[in-house]
C-alpha cells in the first residue's frame, strides 16, 4: 500500500467536510424550527436560508480543496 504523509493530511482535511455538515445542519434545523413556529413567514426567508447554507458550506469546500491539493498537487 503506497502512501505518504500527504495522504494522511488529505484524510485529516476531510474532517473539515464533517464540520461543514454540522454547520449546514445547524442552519437548516434552526430554519425549520423557526418555520414551524411561524409558517407564514417561512416562504419569504428561503433565500436567506440558502445564503446561510452556502456560506456555511464554503469552508467545507475549502477543506475539500485542501484534500484535493494534497492528493494531486503535492
Amino acid at each position, binding site marked *: 500500500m503506497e502512501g505518504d504523509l500527504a495522504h494522511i493530511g488529505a484524510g485529516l482535511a476531510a474532517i473539515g467536510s464533517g464540520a461543514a455538515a454540522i454547520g449546514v445542519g445547524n442552519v437548516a434545523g434552526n430554519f425549520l424550527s423557526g418555520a414551524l413556529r411561524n409558517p407564514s413567514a417561512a416562504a419569504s426567508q428561503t433565500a436567506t436560508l440558502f445564503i446561510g447554507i452556502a456560506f456555511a458550506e464554503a469552508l467545507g469546500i475549502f477543506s*475539500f480543496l485542501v484534500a484535493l491539493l494534497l492528493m*494531486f498537487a503535492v
Partner: protein
Amino acid sequence: MLRHQVKGAKMAVETAAAEGEGGLVFHPMDQFIVEPLFGDGPVHWYTITNATLWMALAVVAVVALMVLATSRRATIPSRGQSIAEMAYGFVYKMVEDVAGKDAVGFFPYVMTLFMFIVFANFLGLIPMSFTTTSHFAVTVVLALAVFLTVTIYGFMKNGTKFLGLFWVSSAPLALRPILAIIEIISYFVRPVSHSIRLAGNVMAGHAVIKVFAGFAAIAVISPVSVVAITAMYGLEVLVAFIQAYVFTILTCVYLKDALHPGH
C-alpha cells in the same frame, strides 16, 4: 490506491485482482481531463476541446429554450414557453427581492449567469459528457466577472462612499479598525469562495459517482454500488440546480452591496 495512474483497463483489472480488495478500474478524476476534440496534441488557448464543446452546447441549449420556445408566443403557453417564462420570473423575482428594485438593470446579466450555469450543470449529468462547471478555470472566470462588476460599479455609483462597506459604523469605535481588516479580507475572499463552491460541489459529486461506479466491478457489492449510484445521481440533479441558484443569489447579494454599501 487512488493515486495509481492507470494506463490501461486490462492492467488495472490485474492490479485490482492482485491486491485482492478491488481497486478502481479507472481513476475517478479521469472524467475531468480536458482533451482536444480533433486529434491529440497540446492544448492551446484556441484549441477546441471537449470543454469548448460542452460550453457551446450549454449556450445552444439556453438559446433554444429562451429564443425558440418563446418565438411563437401563445396565450396558452406550450411546455417550452412555460419553462422559459418560469425561469424568467424566478430569476427576476430573485434579483428584485435580494438585490433590490433598483438592481433590475443587472437582471440580464444575472439571468445569463443562471441559465448558463444551470444548463452546464445539467448537461454535465448526461453520462459520458463533460462537466464544464467542475473546472475552476470556468467558475473562477464567472466569479471574477461578478467581483469586478460589483467593485467597479460600486465605486462608479457611490464613489468613496463604497469604502463604507468596510467601516462598520454600528460597531464601537475601538473595534472598527479590526473589523475593517476582517471585512476587507472577507471581501477579497468572495471570488474565491464564490467560484470554489460551485466547482467543488459539482466536482465532488461527480467524483463520488465514479468512485461508486468503480466498486460495481466487484460482484459482491455491485448491487449496493448500483443503488448508491442511483441515489447519488438523484442528489446530483438536486445539487446541479441548487448550486446554480446559490451562485446567482450570491451574485445578487454582492450586487446589493454595490448599490447600497454601508451597514
